[in-house]
């Protein structure tokens, strides 16, 4: 019996983890231990995330165009100025992004937003999930839409005390009911596994065969998908495919949001009419 103890513990552990996985698979509120752990990790992760972002920007600037100067003094001064410039550039960029978010907010006066910073990302190419630094403390709940100044980013899949996990629209498991802005026809926008270096794309599905759809058409949320309000920009059509066997049309969509450079997002926590309720 003693000899088989490690094997027994392993089998039990595997069983417990599988059960946990099945139970916690969908969108949900984080349990207390998860919420506390996440609350501890999120500020540290955001610190590292911001620092690394600045370093990456610095190297991008450096390799973007630098000249060789021999004098050590000049080099030192340049290094100091570059650091200062980098800091100012960072602030300017943040300022610009936040101003864009404010402008976006003004366009949707009837909606209530909470601004959040991205603190970490899911490693690897399989899931397009990231963590933000606001959670239930700001009224963020599961399935709430997440947007940025350019358009729809995704939705909240798990909310902890001071953090939340967001599944983006380019995640292969994501699907949102959408509307063709010009033709006023409903469809479903699904995420797609990104297997090349091209910009991420989504798939627009279940459109009638006779749908008038051309590249450049805008796709917006239909208002039928969970908490997503109607009319938020998802992206634009880049390629249309006809499937005569199924009698349907599908299309590739270029999301309006640039996910590679995304830093701040807004969670739509409700409508202003709901404020009193």
């Amino acid at each position, binding site marked *: 019996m003693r000899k088989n103890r490690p094997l027994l513990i392993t089998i039990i552990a595997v069983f417990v983890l599988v*059960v946990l*996985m099945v139970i916690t698979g969908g969108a949900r509120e984080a349990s207390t231990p998860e919420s506390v752990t996440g609350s501890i990790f999120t500020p540290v992760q955001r610190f590292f995330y911001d620092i690394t972002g600045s370093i990456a920007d610095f190297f991008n600037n450096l390799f973007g165009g630098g000249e060789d100067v021999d004098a050590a003094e000049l080099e030192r001064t340049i290094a100091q100025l570059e650091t200062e410039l980098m800091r100012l550039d960072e602030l300017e960029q943040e300022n610009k992004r936040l101003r864009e978010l404010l402008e976006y907010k003004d366009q949707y006066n009837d909606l209530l937003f909470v601004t959040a910073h991205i603190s970490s990302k899911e490693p690897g190419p399989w899931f397009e999930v990231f963590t933000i630094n606001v959670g239930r403390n700001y009224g963020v709940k599961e399935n709430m839409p997440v947007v940025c100044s350019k358009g729809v980013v995704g939705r909240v899949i798990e909310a902890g005390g001071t953090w939340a996990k967001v599944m983006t629209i380019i995640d292969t498991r994501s699907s949102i009911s959408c509307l063709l802005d010009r033709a006023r026809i409903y469809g479903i926008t699904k995420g797609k*596994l990104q297997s090349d*270096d091209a910009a991420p794309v989504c798939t627009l599905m279940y459109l009638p065969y006779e749908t008038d759809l051309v590249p450049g058409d805008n796709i917006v949320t239909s208002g039928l998908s969970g908490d997503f309000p109607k009319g938020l920009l998802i992206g634009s059509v880049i390629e249309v495919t006809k499937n005569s066997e199924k009698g349907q049309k599908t299309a590739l969509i270029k999301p309006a949001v640039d996910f590679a450079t995304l830093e701040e997002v807004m969670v739509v926590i409700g409508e202003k009419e709901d404020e009193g309720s």
Partner: protein
Amino acid sequence: MTILFIGMFLLGGLFLDTAILPQLAILGLVPDVLVCITISFALLYGSTIGASVGVAGGLMLDVMCGPALGFYGLIYLLLGLGAGLMDQRRVNKYLLPSVAAVLAVIAKAAFHIVYLALQGYGEGSFAVFLRYILPGALLSGLIMVPLHLLIRTRKIFKSLKRSKMQNYYE
């Protein structure tokens, strides 16, 4: 071996994997540091420690960005367990950690593919595997060399200290 030592590595790996490396990725390629840490502990201290380190790291990753609680916990547990069972006498001990890390990253990708396929989202998995996972696995194999040395140095240092203490009392 202290819990603090393991915890330090796990937290470092977690922050590297989720907050630092995704932003520094060149051509979308990143090494899997947490997998390397799990494999390294498993090779040095056996399957029980390997599995424990794996499940702890995996659960932390689950809380931060996993698709479901237990998903990464299960994967890392099995990776730690499997690596700990490898017979090190039969494989080149200098090559083994890197080879084990490469295999572990590939095995982890296989879990992802199965998980997505079970939910009906398997389309394009093979292309992702070829484009990101294989080069990323090789990168993990490279990272494994200094990382394993670091963890191994601590083990050697500890055993030297222990033998010195024994000599002193004798």
